[in-house]
């Protein structure tokens, strides 16, 4: 997610105003200078000193919190914001920031509660609504997530990130036509967006539009090749779909590339192992399947594939053991159904 970068811009712009308002403490001014220079760690220390020098007199705890957010230190940031709220209970800035921090801490229910409280102080921005939506994503409530993303986009139609997330949410809802439309909108605004292109492929694949999906994945691969840091997903998705469509030979280089980019991803090794298995390259398949099993030991499909590979290689006892683990894992998964509201 690229939320940190966006939040940072918001915080920096707001800082100029606050600097003018709270110019009474020299150490606070110095801290603000560091903040504006994006020297987050030094700024955080300076704000702490500023607060020590003049407790409750400046917005130092608020800005210390912002600096810590930019450092990814969410626990400390939350503590700083809560300190600030002790003396500034009506600060909408602090309220929204704390709600955002709870989101980043993967505490969506608390985050949503705080957003609700913050909204009483000030109307949420498009970015706030986007984060609310992502809270709902974390809760698996895609209907509400979609609603808030639509509201966010109504305020800021050019927000590519919100539109991308809307596409993802529509995909999760199995609303593939809407997902495709959202990803097309992202690509219209940002033609080089790898994730949008890749997810366009996923949505097309879900609609059984195989050729179009392959084209999208190929485009995503082309786009990611030009980036300094590559993403394995387009290679993985392209390779997997090629293999499923009977083009296993063509799939292999894609899957090799995916597992080179993400060597610690069990999924990439699994797909590569499966492609090798389909081509009867049993030694290669075994090597990759064992890697997948080592990385994802609770993944029944990995054990099943390894079992099939052993079986075809004439290693009956090893195969049996893998099949035993497969059934055990499947059983434990299906018996965890409980009485939750599970539809078909």
């Amino acid at each position, binding site marked *: 997610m690229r939320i940190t970068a966006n939040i940072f811009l918001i915080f920096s712009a707001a800082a100029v105003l606050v600097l003018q308002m709270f110019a009474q403490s020299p150490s606070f001014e110095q801290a603000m200078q560091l903040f504006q220079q994006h020297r987050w760690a030094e700024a955080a220390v300076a704000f702490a000193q500023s607060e020590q020098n003049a407790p409750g007199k400046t917005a130092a705890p608020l800005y210390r919190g912002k600096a810590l957010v930019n450092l990814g230190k969410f626990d400390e940031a939350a503590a700083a914001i809560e300190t600030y709220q002790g003396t500034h209970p009506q600060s909408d800035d602090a309220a929204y920031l704390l709600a955002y921090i709870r989101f980043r801490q993967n505490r969506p229910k608390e985050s949503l509660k705080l957003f609700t409280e913050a909204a009483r102080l000030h109307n949420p921005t498009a970015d706030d609504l986007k984060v609310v939506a992502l809270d709902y994503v974390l809760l698996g409530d895609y*209907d509400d997530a979609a609603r808030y993303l639509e509201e966010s986009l109504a305020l800021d139609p050019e927000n590519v990130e919100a539109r991308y997330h809307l596409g993802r949410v529509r995909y999760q809802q*199995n*609303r*593939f*036509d809407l997902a495709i439309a959202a990803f097309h909108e992202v690509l219209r605004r940002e033609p080089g967006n790898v994730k949008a292109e890749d997810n366009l492929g996923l949505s097309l694949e*879900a*609609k*059984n539009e*195989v050729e179009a999906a392959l084209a999208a994945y190929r485009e995503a691969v082309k786009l990611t090749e030009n980036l300094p840091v590559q993403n394995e997903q387009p290679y993985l998705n392209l390779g997997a779909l090629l293999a*499923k*469509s*009977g083009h296993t030979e063509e799939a292999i280089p894609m899957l090799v590339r995916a597992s080179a980019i993400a060597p610690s991803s069990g999924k990439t090794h699994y797909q590569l192992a*499966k492609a090798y298995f389909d081509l009867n390259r049993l030694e290669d398949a075994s090597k990759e399947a064992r890697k997948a099993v080592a990385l994802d030991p609770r993944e*029944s*499909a*990995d*054990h*099943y*594939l390894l*079992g*099939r590979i052993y*079986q075809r290689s004439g290693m009956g006892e090893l*195969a*049996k053991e893998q*099949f035993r683990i*497969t*059934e055990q894992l*499947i*059983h434990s998964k*299906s*018996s*965890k*159904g*409980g*009485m*939750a*509201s*599970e*539809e*078909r």
Partner: protein
Amino acid sequence: MPVAATAGNFVDITQKLGVHFKHEASPTSKKYLLETMGSGVALFDYDNDGRLDIFFANGARIDDPTPKGTIPQKDGPKYWNRLYHQKPDGSFEDVTEKAGVAGTGYSTGVAVGDYDNDGYDDLFVAGYGHSTLYHNNGDGTFTDVTASAGVAGSGWATSAAWVDYDNDGRLDLVVARYMEWDFDDIYCGHREEGFRSYCHPDLFKPASVLLYHNDGNGKFTEVALKAGMGKLGKGLGLAIADYDHDGWMDILLANDSIPEFLFHNKGDGTFEEVGVVSGVGLDGSGATFAGMGVDFEDYNNDGWPDVIITDLANQKYALYKNAGDGTFDYSTLTTGLGAISLLHSAWGVRFMDYDNDGWKDLFIVQSHVMDTIQTNEPHLRYRESPLLLWNDKGNKFVDVSEQSGKVFQQKWAARGMAIGDIDNDGKTDVVVTENNGPAWILHNETATHNHWITLQLVGVKSNRDGIGAQIKITTAAGDQYATVTTASSYQSSGDKRAHFGLGSANVVKQVEIRWPSGVIQVLKDVSPDQILTVTEASSSAKQNPAIH
């Protein structure tokens, strides 16, 4: 459609034949699972007049709400199971009352087999809470012998299959059970008007099959646990075949959302469940799926029975090619079935050679299980058209539905399906049941000059129906194989006669029958385009055809 593919032509003749059956599912606002699972159909000749008759299983009244522990009852004629007798002119008459087969509870599956070897096919009707065995009296009436036979069972029975698993000459009975389920008010799906849905099987505990050994005196003994079939499943479909050619019939159970079971018959009265080990337990990605209908026949003419299992959208119908070494290869993707079935859901399924070209095609009847599916997944549909797939020499399946008649444009909530040659014209016809809807009789009017042969076996040492016999026919084009069975599909029972398309071959060079008794009977130079009755020989020998 490739040039080589032959389009079928199936015509709806239901009304013309005088069949007016309507299934009563009793849908409620509570979305009780029972009301969406449908009931099956049987095609069998109960009066031995040479013409297939039709039996439809039906639901029962379900109140909204229904108290836990209730066993629904048929409290009016609209819930009756129906037996339609085929008259000499090919039309049907409802003989339910006269035959005494209206039934009592919520009926689900049907299985036909002559369990007492008296020459008249008997009827087992599976149901929720209890099942019923009707003995065919041979005079157009049946007697409910459930209690004396000891096969009422318990729980939610779905499909059933007659099979002589110990080769003692008497048909035994396997009954699939879905799961431990009751009329609990469990809310599943979005809490919004119109979004309540049927609950996932994961919410319920599994149940074992029931295996009734035929003791030979009109009584059966339930031996599932003793026979190694006590493993708990969520069974919906049953099929039989000797997949490893060891002379003993094996049993495939299609399970919903857990691994599929293949019970390998060890030949000593016991079975070993080898679904996952053999390769039919999971799909090609090692995932479970919602197994519903099943068939167990050799689609690529290599002599080894293959497997197809239908399931729900996004899962792809699972096709397994028998590798001949006790394992199966997932062939859904390589045969084209994956792309064809990805967005579809199906129940009844049979391999059948609709154009008599010598390759078994696929007839599949479709519908999602959730009547609300389109609200949750707009690209899917509850009601679907049936699917006809032409077999391209065992390598690929080609979707010829669009070119094969108006019935393939109709949208049905299909569930059960039975196949058989209703008018004995050498082309296999189809009967389909809908959930809470009418039944459909589809007459096969495919334009072809291909030859055919249908074999009706009469067991002597083996069970009278010849169920479990393995037939190999040889023509100039090669070999074909079939297992005699009435089981397969979903909760349904098909014509026991084995049908083969012969293509242009004007003679069957050889028919080889491996009877369950072990007798191997060979017929030479058999004429095509006939229904040939073959009575089991007393010992293995080559014979000229005995035409009855």
